[in-house]
């Protein structure tokens, strides 16, 4: 049976496997590069077939979809595998920061070259985040920028070029006005890119990690945007750090 499983790649790619076999095959895919490769190619192939039967849906469908999408939460991003901390003692100030970080955490992974692992519960998530934050903060080449946020609170950015990661930590941040949200931006040669939305917890703490492709980033900023965020900043920043 195990030898046969490779022959199911085409059936899998056409969704022609019954549920139990699909689960088995997906488990197999995790460890089989050849099958993953074949599945990817065959999925592209049948996706091409579908182009030939394209048909415009009714115009009203678009509005219905957009309305529903406005009400649906997205899955959070998957976390990269954290580099393990060495066994050496952590400085006291690091412990304090990590305790803050474990409160409310949102992770954003930019780089597509990272290997990602899906973590199943908040405790595991918090631990991995802790490690990642600590990795940045304890890096030999860490740079920090700290400044008050207009409107209240203080935020510190810590960047480690060697880790290619940055951590934004905020405290005392007030909740944004009704219908508005904080949004983080990275400014590079191509302009500003959103690094996601920031939601202070009840204690006014915010934590955000951005990783990958940071070499060209000159500036990190936070603005207040309409709820849901904006594709580009629509107002002057409430906080800026230049790198």
């Amino acid at each position, binding site marked *: 049976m195990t030898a046969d499983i490779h022959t199911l790649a085409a059936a899998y790619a056409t969704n022609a496997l019954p549920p139990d076999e699909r689960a088995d095959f997906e488990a197999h895919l995790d460890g089989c590069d050849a099958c993953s490769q074949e599945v990817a190619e065959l999925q592209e192939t049948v996706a091409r077939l579908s182009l030939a039967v394209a048909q415009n849906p009714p115009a009203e469908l678009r509005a219905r979809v957009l309305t*529903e999408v406005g009400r649906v939460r997205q899955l959070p991003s998957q976390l990269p595998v954290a580099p393990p901390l060495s066994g050496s003692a952590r400085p006291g100030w690091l412990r304090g920061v990590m305790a803050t970080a474990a409160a409310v955490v949102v992770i954003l992974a930019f780089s597509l070259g990272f290997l990602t692992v899906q973590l199943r519960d908040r405790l595991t998530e918090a631990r991995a985040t802790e490690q990642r934050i600590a990795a940045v903060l304890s890096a030999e080449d860490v740079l920090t920028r700290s400044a008050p946020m207009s409107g209240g609170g203080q935020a510190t950015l810590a960047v480690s070029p060697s880790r290619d990661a940055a951590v934004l930590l905020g405290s005392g941040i007030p909740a944004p006005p009704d219908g508005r949200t904080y949004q983080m931006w990275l400014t590079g040669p191509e302009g500003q890119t959103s690094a996601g939305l920031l939601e202070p917890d009840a204690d006014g703490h915010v934590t955000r990690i951005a990783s990958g492709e940071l070499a060209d980033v000159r500036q990190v900023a936070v603005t207040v945007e309409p709820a849901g965020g904006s594709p580009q900043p629509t107002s002057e920043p409430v906080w800026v750090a230049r790198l």
Partner: protein
Amino acid sequence: MVSNEARRLRSVRGLDRRSDADPLDENLLRVARGDQRAFEQVYDRIAGPVFGLVRRIVRDPAQSEEVTQEVFVEVWRTATRFDPARGSGHSWVMTLAHRRAVDRVRSAQASIDRDLRAGRRDQERPFDVVAEQVEARMEQEQVRRALDSLTDLQREAITLAYYGGYTYREVAELLELPLGTVKTRLRDGLIRLRDALGVTR
């Protein structure tokens, strides 16, 4: 913000020759960050292929609209799961669409016996629906040529599995063939299509 490394990895491209292949990927990455305007662009670009495929499988117009809506909501909800290193955005969305359409017809309690009695097997033809979009007509030509390169038996197995939404076991029952034969025909046929359409790594 697509890194060079990601460009090297993202090499399973069914649509390399099309200059509009990249914007969809870029938009999906933005959708993953909550960008609703990027989501609208995704919808506008790919709603036609999604609806057309769903319609082809589900057939009923009202249910097709429902399933199409489900597909796009899932695109929004799970956008963070899109990984350009594993395949194109186009393929990611269409795979999602196909899965949803197939799940819908399977849950409709249409038994194989009923289908056999209704002669459904003979109704499966990929081009019953005339494509409304120019791009789709051009694509039809290439797909038609690619399908022509298959043997009748391969084409039949693929049509039943892909457009009919049958599992390979059901295809084996419908065609009264051993499982191994169906698996082989599916695989060989898809590999031929892959080569004919120029899907490369």
